[in-house]
Structures are given as structure tokens and as C-alpha cells.
């Protein structure tokens, strides 16, 4: 039986806007994320993706319903640090989440907050930096690194806290294509090699292809859910929602419309090449 990492039980989160109106950012969400799973959350700006992520590590508390992380209720104030240790979070802007002036000091920030022995911190910092392949940069000043490298440092900072689950809130949105690739390779490796549960929020369809499961959100609700192949085979439905499909899927879709006989669940260049 699959173990549950994050469970959302009929969760609603509302906020008050400038005109004093209450707006639901997230409405009646039911969701289960399993241990070791790689989940991608897609959606437009303002669809509630980030709110969903922040609900998962108690940065926001639900208005209605319950969120459980590893079986712990996020509204339990005594367990809040356990939750944040279990579900680490990486944010969009790498500059605004690096605290220290030296890479290794920044990676040590999380474990230092947890009150871990200095020797153990040293070990964890080196392991975490090795896991994101940034060990040779450990004495650099963060502002001298590229965006992709900074984001990997941020991931290492979360890894050093030994979380079971890593939530990434659009970590690639501010990066150039090569930086995005670096970060995605790192995330994929952490999921496969270290068995970390990954919850990845993004705009990019080619990143979603790597997932085990895709969740599409709109107006605070989950409107589609499934494996990448199931989701991206419904090209027309996605287009109607204003969402894109990966380039290769798009090409395959157009070819099929022209009468060429190929399956409708092509996601990668290799698949398309072998079919043709």
C-alpha cells in the first residue's frame, strides 16, 4: 500500500483583497500525495497553485478543512517545526531566500535552526552540496553565482534539513533555459536517487512531462488530474483552457490531424522518432 505524504481534506483558503471582499484562493480541495511521488502542479497565474504549496508546510493555515503532512495536522502549533522539517520549501526568487554571505553558511542555516550538533551540520552541508553538485562552490559568495546555481543552493539548503518531501514553488520561473535544465535535472535526481517526494509547481509543460502525476488547477480548484500521458493526450481540452502542451505533443497532434497514424500520447522527441 502506498503511504500518504500530504493529505488535503476539503481545504478552503480565503484572503481579503483591497476592496474588503473575501476571495477564495483555494476551494474545497481534496488531494493525496504519496511518498516518493513526483507531482507537478500546473495552472495560470492566480489559480491558487502557490497558496496550495504554502498550505502544505504550514506557512498558511486552512480556513476550512484540514491539511495533514506525514499524518500531522498543520494547525497543530506545537508540531509546526516538525512539519516544516518534513516538507521543505524552495521559492521562486533565488535572491530572496539565501540568507548568508557564503554558500556553505547558507546551506547550514536550516540545520542550525533545528539545533543540530556542529559536526553533524558539517556532514549534512557537504552531503547536501554534493547532492546538488555544488560542492566545489561551497566557499563562494552567493551573488557571484548564476541563477540556476543559486536555486540549487536553495535546494541544498532544504536538503540539509533532511526533509522527506520538497515543495518547489516555481523554482525555474526566473531562470534562463540552461539554469532551468540544471534545476530540473537536480530535482529529478533527488526524486529517483534519494526517494524524496517532489511537489513541483511550474508554468513549463516540458517540465511537467517528467512527473508521475500532473494536477491542473484553475480558479482555486483541481480541474484535471492524471499521468502526463493521460493529460497531454487531451490536447484540445488543454488548449480550450488556455494551457499549452509540450512542443513534441503539439507536433504529433498536428501530424495526426493531417492523417498520419500515430498514437495520441507522445511526450518526448525519442518517442516520436521511434513511432515515425
Amino acid at each position, binding site marked *: 500500500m502506498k503511504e500518504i505524504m500530504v493529505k488535503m481534506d476539503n481545504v478552503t483558503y480565503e484572503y481579503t483583497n483591497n476592496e474588503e471582499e473575501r476571495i477564495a484562493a483555494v476551494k474545497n480541495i481534496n488531494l493525496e500525495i504519496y511518498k516518493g511521488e513526483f507531482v507537478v502542479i500546473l495552472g495560470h497565474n492566480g489559480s491558487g497553485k502557490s497558496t496550495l504549496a504554502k498550505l502544505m*508546510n504550514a*506557512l498558511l493555515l486552512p480556513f476550512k478543512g484540514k491539511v495533514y503532512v506525514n499524518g500531522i495536522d498543520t494547525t497543530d502549533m506545537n508540531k509546526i*517545526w516538525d512539519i*516544516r*522539517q518534513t516538507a*521543505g*520549501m524552495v*521559492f521562486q*526568487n533565488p*535572491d*530572496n*531566500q*539565501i*540568507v*548568508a*554571505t*557564503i554558500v*556553505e*553558511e547558507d546551506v*547550514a*542555516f*536550516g*540545520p*542550525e*535552526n*533545528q*539545533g*543540530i*550538533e*556542529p559536526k553533524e*551540520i*558539517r556532514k549534512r*552541508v557537504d552531503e547536501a552540496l554534493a547532492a546538488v553538485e555544488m560542492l566545489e562552490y561551497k566557499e563562494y*559568495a*552567493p*551573488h557571484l553565482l548564476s541563477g540556476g546555481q543559486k536555486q540549487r543552493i536553495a535546494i541544498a*539548503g*532544504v536538503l540539509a*534539513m533532511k526533509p522527506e518531501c520538497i515543495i518547489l514553488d516555481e523554482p525555474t520561473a526566473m531562470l534562463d533555459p540552461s539554469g532551468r535544465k540544471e534545476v530540473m535535472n537536480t530535482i529529478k535526481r533527488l526524486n529517483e536517487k534519494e526517494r524524496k517526494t517532489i511537489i513541483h509547481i511550474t508554468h513549463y509543460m516540458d517540465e511537467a512531462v517528467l512527473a508521475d502525476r500532473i494536477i491542473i488547477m484553475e480558479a482555486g480548484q483541481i480541474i484535471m488530474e492524471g499521468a502526463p500521458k493521460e493529460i497531454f493526450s487531451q490536447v484540445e481540452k488543454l488548449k480550450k483552457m488556455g494551457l499549452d502542451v509540450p512542443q513534441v505533443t503539439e507536433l504529433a497532434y498536428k501530424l495526426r490531424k493531417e492523417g498520419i497514424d500515430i498514437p495520441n500520447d507522445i511526450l518526448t522527441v525519442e518517442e516520436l522518432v521511434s513511432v515515425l
Partner: protein
Amino acid sequence: MIKDITIGQYYPGNTVIHKLDPRIKIIITFLFIIALFFIDKFLPYLFVLGFIIMVISMSKIPVKYILKGLKPLLPIIIITFLLNLFMTRGQVVFEIGPLDVTIEGLNKASFMAFRLIFLIVGTSLLTLTTSPISLTDGIEKLLNPFKKIGVPAHELAMMMTIALRFIPTLLEEAEKIMKAQMARGADFESGNVLNRAKSLVPLLVPLFISAFRRADELAMAMEARCYRGGENRTRMKQLILNTRDFIAMSIMLILFVIILLYRYL
């Protein structure tokens, strides 16, 4: 260009002076400053000079680099010198217009100038040989005993670290905003002081807004990484006192005693 500004004018190196425990270096600097104010004769200055020369040669910092640091403070040194020179009463040596130069004045003026120069060189040696991070660490550790009387040692150190961390980021951002405004015809260079100050408003407003937004995001990121103040917090790098720290401290104490002896014997 603007990014290359060195903060706290740290001069990287790997010498004994660089490796000294920051706490010891801060205490030594304090003792040094206090000692300077006990000196009332010229002779003890020789010891101070010897001490400074020893530290500089051990730290391998070029003398030119240190003199460069004196430059911005030169006006203060000169004003102090001149004031003491003309304002001290005593035996007149010669006159310049209405002003008298006395032997006592000459004595006092050069005395004060030496004190100021030693003061500046001594303190800049601290910042030149200690990286900002270890300096913050040292300050935090030294202030720790005062926590009981309400000195927020950890918070002060954290603020300094974050400030140091964000200086390059904000400088970069200021440059970006400046270029964006210049591309739209803003003029930062011509006009008198008042006009130039005015032209900085469209630079500072977006910079401040963005700094607040950054602060907000950073606070959230810190909380997500379990930050909850200084309590029960450990540090990866422990400060450990070595033999060299005790030797350095002893040398400073000997200097201090010599100065006291000259003063009171």
C-alpha cells in the same frame, strides 16, 4: 563595476593575524584604543609604533593599502592638528598674522595627530584582517553574556549578516533601475546638487519598494527553514581559542601594562 565595491574593506589573506579568533581581535582592538588614551608622553608611542609595524608586517597587508585608508580622514587629522597648534597658550615660537604658535601647541598638536593616526590604523587593521562574517560571529559571541540584561546579541548579528548579504543584490538592482530610468530619458549626472538629489527620487522609490518586497519573501523563506530566533540555535562553525590567540592576547596585555607604567610612574 558597482558590484566590485568591497564591503568592510576586508583584505583576504591566510596569515596568523587573519587566522586569529575574531573575539580576541575585537578585544585587542578595544584594549588598544583604551591604551592610546592613557598615553601622555611621546616615548610610549614608540612601543605602539613597534606593535603596529609588527602586526602590519605579519598580516602582509601592503602599507600603501593602509595609508589609502587614512586618506579620507586626513581633513579631520589636519583640523585637529591646526586647532591644537593655534589654540594652546604658552611660550611663543613664531607668529603667523594674529595666530601664535607655541612650543606647547606644537607638542600637543603633533601628539593628538599621532593618537588619531594610530587609532585609525589600529581599528582598520581589525576590519582589514577579519572577514565580515567572522566579525559578526565574534560580536555575537562577545555580546552573549549581556543577553541577560536585554542586549539582543543574536538579532544584531543576524541583521548584520542579512545586510551584508543584500548589499550586492541591492547595488545590482539600483544599477538596473538607474539604467532603466536613463533609457527613458532620466538624467542623473548634470545640474547642481539639489537637482541631482531630486533626480534620485525615481531611483530610490522603486528601490525601497523592491527592498520591502524582498524582506517579506526572505522572512517567509527563513520561516520555512525553521528559523525561530536565536534560542536553541547551533552554529556549524565553532570558534575555538588556539595557542596563537593566547600569545596575541599576552602581547597586547604587555603593551597595555607598559603604557600604564609610563603614565603612572
